[in-house]
Every structure is written in C-alpha cells, then in structure tokens.
C-alpha cells in the first residue's frame, strides 16, 4: 500500500505545477476566449530567468519569486497591449491562436539561442531534504510546489471575489458584451486577467526551476498539459483548475507505474478526449459556461 500512497503523493506534487499553469490559462481563456498555447513557453522562460539569476548572482529561487512575479506581470501587460489587445476583440479566434503560436516559436528559439539545447536545472543546497511520513518520502522542494499552487489559487480566488477589478473579470468571463454595456472597461479587464495569467506563469516557472530540469522544447507540451488540466477541472473555477491539475498529475503517475512511462501521454490525452466528449463542463465547472463562443 505504501507504494500506491507514494504514487498518489507524487502525482499531487507533480500536478500542482499543472494546476498553477491551468489557473493562468483559465483566466486568459475565461475573459478573452484565447487558447493561449504560449503559456508553457512563458513558464519555461521564467524558469530560465530564475536559473540564470541563481547561477549568475546566487539568488535563491524562492527569493526570486519577488522579482519574477512583478516582472511577469509587467511582461503580461506588455504582451497584451502589444499583441493581443486587438486580436482579443476580433470574432476570428484564429488570429489570437496564431499570435500565441508565433510567440511560442519566437520565445522557444530565443531560449535555444541564449541558453542552448542542454536541459538545465538548479541544484540547491537543500535540494536533497526529504520529509518522511510513514513509508512516504516527499522532497521538501516538491512539497513547497504544492504550497505555491495553493497560495496562488487562494490569491487569485480572493482577487476575483473581493476586489472590484476581480468582480469585473468574473462578469467578463460570464458575458463580455453585457459587461461592456455596464460601463466596465473591457480592455482593462482583459489586460489584468492576461497579466495575472502571465504572473502565474512566473510562479510556475520558479517552481519548475527548483525541482525539474527543463529545456527549450518543454513549453508546448506543458501548455497542452495545462489545457488538459483546465478541461478536467472545468473552466471558470479557480480551485477547479487547480484540482484538474492535481488530478492530471495523479493520472500521469498512475499510468507511469501501471502501464509504463512511454504511455503517460496517451493516458493524459486519452482522459482529455474522454472529458471533452462526455463531460465538457469538466468535473468542477459550471454547465452554463460551455456555450457557443
């Protein structure tokens, strides 16, 4: 039984990364209906920045959260106003999809030019620290990832529920047209949700840098995993997206253990297809949100 528990715990810890990314995607998709395929690439970019500041200046990854998050937020605002502002308002969603793809090509290959193709990872002095509960062994760093994910979900949740802008964001993801008619500045609402989405990519990037090794090609797969997590959890629900991520992590770890590592992807995309076909509102989403867009 110990091994099953270990698998579940590992799955949850892996899934917390997907969860953070999925919350970001959910905000962006919810307001602008953009399938932001570059989310994974942005995560990898911030992972490299964290790695870089650790290697060059010796800054602890967790300290760099305080620089990476504001930086990511500003990058998000910049990207929105430069690239996505007009595209988000268009009926034709191909445009924003391709913009995200273009951004992905661009950033992926810039990373390749700057840092090369060798996978990178950070080796911290406390990387080996392990928490032992009964037969289960958890690396503290991975455990911290779950903390990061929970904290991010809570912050975003409070932002959406308690602030005026957050209320506007929620309204916009219900019905953009009606929101605009209420006198809410829809551009600003989109900008804020996009910037928060990218800031969450920053959080996930720091998390990734502390635990996993990453290379320039990792982004696309990761973005799709985040999409799977989002579909599992259901759009329009912060904790649903997080739960979808955790569930995806568990599914992947179970598949790796019982079927084989090579089949992880088949399992996760298979679940993705089944959910899309039979449960389009996701496990925790509201039915009303799955409508013709």
């Amino acid at each position: 039984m110990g091994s099953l528990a270990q698998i579940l715990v590992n799955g949850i810890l892996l899934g917390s990364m997907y969860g953070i990314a999925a919350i970001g995607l959910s905000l962006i998709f919810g307001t602008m209906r953009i399938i932001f395929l570059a989310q994974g690439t942005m995560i990898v970019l911030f992972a490299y920045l964290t790695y870089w500041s650790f290697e060059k200046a010796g800054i602890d990854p967790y300290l760099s959260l305080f620089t990476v998050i504001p930086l990511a937020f500003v990058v998000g605002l910049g990207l929105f106003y430069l690239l996505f502002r007009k595209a988000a308002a268009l009926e034709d969603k191909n445009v924003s999809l391709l913009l995200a793809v273009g951004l992905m090509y661009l950033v992926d290959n810039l990373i390749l030019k700057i840092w090369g193709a060798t996978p990178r990872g950070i080796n911290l002095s406390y990387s080996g620290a392990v928490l032992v509960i009964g037969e289960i062994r958890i690396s503290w760093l991975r455990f911290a990832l779950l903390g990061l994910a929970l904290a991010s979900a809570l912050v975003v949740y409070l932002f959406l529920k308690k602030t005026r802008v957050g209320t506007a964001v929620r309204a916009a993801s219900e019905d953009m047209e009606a929101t605009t008619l209420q006198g809410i500045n829809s551009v600003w609402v989109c900008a804020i949700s996009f910037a928060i989405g990218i800031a969450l990519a920053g959080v996930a990037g720091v998390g990734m840098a502390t635990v996993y090794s990453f290379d320039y090609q990792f982004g696309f797969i990761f973005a799709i995993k985040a999409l799977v997590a989002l579909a599992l959890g259901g759009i329009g629900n912060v904790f649903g997206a997080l739960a979808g991520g955790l569930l995806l992590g568990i599914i992947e770890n179970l598949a790796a253990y019982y079927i084989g590592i090579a089949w992880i992807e088949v399992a996760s995309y298979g679940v993705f297809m089944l959910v899309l076909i039979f449960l389009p509102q996701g496990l925790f989403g509201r039915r009303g949100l799955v409508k013709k867009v």
Partner: protein
Amino acid sequence: MGSDLGIDGADMKLLSETDRPDKRKLVWAGFSALAVLFFATLPFYYDVHNGQFGVFFFNVFVYVIVAQGWNLVSGYTGQISLGQNAFFGIGAYTMALLWFNDVTKTGYYFDPVLMILAGVAPFILAVLVGVPLLSRLRGDYFAFGTLGMGMIVTVLFINGGMFTGGAEGRMLVPKMPEGAVFNLRTHYWVALLVAVLATLVVYALTTSRIGLALRAIKEDEVSAASHGVNVLKYKVMAFAVGAAMAGVAGSIYGYYLLQVTPSNVLTSNWLFLPILMVVLGGTGTILGPWLGAFLIYLISWYGDSYFAGYHPIISGVVIILVMLFLPSGLMGLGQKLPGLGRRGRGSG
C-alpha cells in the same frame, strides 16, 4: 479554375447588385489557368530535379494541399481543427507501412492505390473522432479535442514498436522497386496535380449547395440547424475531406523523404504552418492558401539560407507581424482597399 473570394453573406449581396462578378470570376479563372499551365510546363524548360526551384515548388504544393484541407474545415465551415499534422502523418505512415510490409502487392512507388489509401485512413479517423467531438462540442472545444487527438496519434506512432518502427520510423530507400528512378520531376508533377485537384474539390464543394450549408454553419449554427441544415453531417464531412487531403499530401511527402519518422511527418510544423498560410492568404478564399503557401515558404526558404539557425525565430516574428497587421489576409486586402484607411493603425 475560378475564384470565390470568400465573400460573406452581406458582401455577396452587395457585389451581385453593383459589380459584375462574372467578369471578375473570369479574370481570376484565366489567371489561375495560366498559372497552372506555367507550373505544369516548368519541368520542360527548367531542371526541377537539380535546380533549387524544383524542391521549393514541390514543398509549396504539398503545403497547399494541407492548407486547402484546413481551409475547408476551418476557413469555410468555421470549425478550428488543430489535428492536421496527425492526418498528414497518418497518410505518410499508411503509405510507408503498406509499402514496407508489402501488403497491397502493387507498384508502391507513386502508386495511386497507396495514395488513395493514404487519404482514406485519415478520412476514417476523422469521421470516428469527428462524430463525437462535433456533435457535443462547439467552438473552442473542437480545437482542444483535435489537438488532443494529434498528440495521441503522435505518441502512438512513437510507441508503435515493431509496427511503426518507433522514433526511427520506416526507411523506404531499400524498398525502391527495380528500375524506379528518384527524380523530383515526378514529385513535382504529382504534388502540383493533387494541389490543383484539392483546390478544385474545395471550389466545387464550396460553390455548391454544400458550400451554402457550410457557410451557414460558420455564420450561425443554430440558425443553420433551424433552416433544415444537417449541421453534424456537413461539419463531419468538411472535417473528413480536409483530413483526407492532409493524408494524401503526407503520402506524397513520404515519397520525397523515403524515410517516414514521427519527427518529420508528425511535427507541429504540419499543423501551424498550413494554418498560417491560409490565414495570411485569406481564410475562406480559394486562392488564399496558394498565395500564403508561396509567401510563407519563401520566407522560411530564404530565412534558412541567409540566417541559418535563426530561421524559427524569424518564423515566429513573421507570424506575429502578419497577425498584427494583416489579420484578414491578403485576399481580404484587395477587397477592402477603399476601407483600409478607416481601420486606423494604432499598434499600441
């Protein structure tokens, strides 16, 4: 070949009242016929096998076939498919595996039987995947679903072991029949022929009653259904025909590579570049994919020779610039020229 400039309902009415579309169509048809004639006769006065334009145009034609398929399902019908690379790869693998395992006992090298089967296999998959996806989902979820399908297909071929040859794929060079000569001239002509055929199929489909149904679905699904259009049937049909085109293109490309591996026929390039070509040329226009394919392949061709290694970065920049400044495509530009000034150019 005539042209249907992707006019949506409102414009169409306007045009038929004011302009004479027959004349416009005639001009475009004449222009297209001349272009096809030029390309078809090119090998007689230009060495396509050794000259670099042979490879160039061959690639453009292959991209045009895939792009026309995507144009049909996404441009005309409005269902964004993100699984074209899977269909392309399945087409290439159908050809390669049948040949490699000596199944059909036919000629194999540029064998029409194999090429047709390479279109049939993705067609069947598209129907199987399309029926559940398109009957339950609308809008973005179809894009998600086809993306997931593409990923599953890719992983299945990588993990196929003895059946697909895994990551190394299948090497077809030793299987070349005796007497068959590898001359790009054949590739060039076959690709051109199929690209023209694909264009004619899309043209015929979209200018018939079916096209009317497809466009009605794109404009407003509920309204189309309430007017008696069998929405699911037409959506699945467009999706499957588009998939078949990608599959045939895959088999032609497989004949060019003579080694079919997941990394060269299932890569996301075969997904995103055709989409970019269609959007750059003009979504839902019959000649847009040709224009887009020429331009995009030209950029990546010269990008590759002058800025080796930076070429994917350039592609990224090109995609972004095109989407920022030409979101309705080049064919749309010609139509809306008088109204261009109104749009404003604020890039902030």
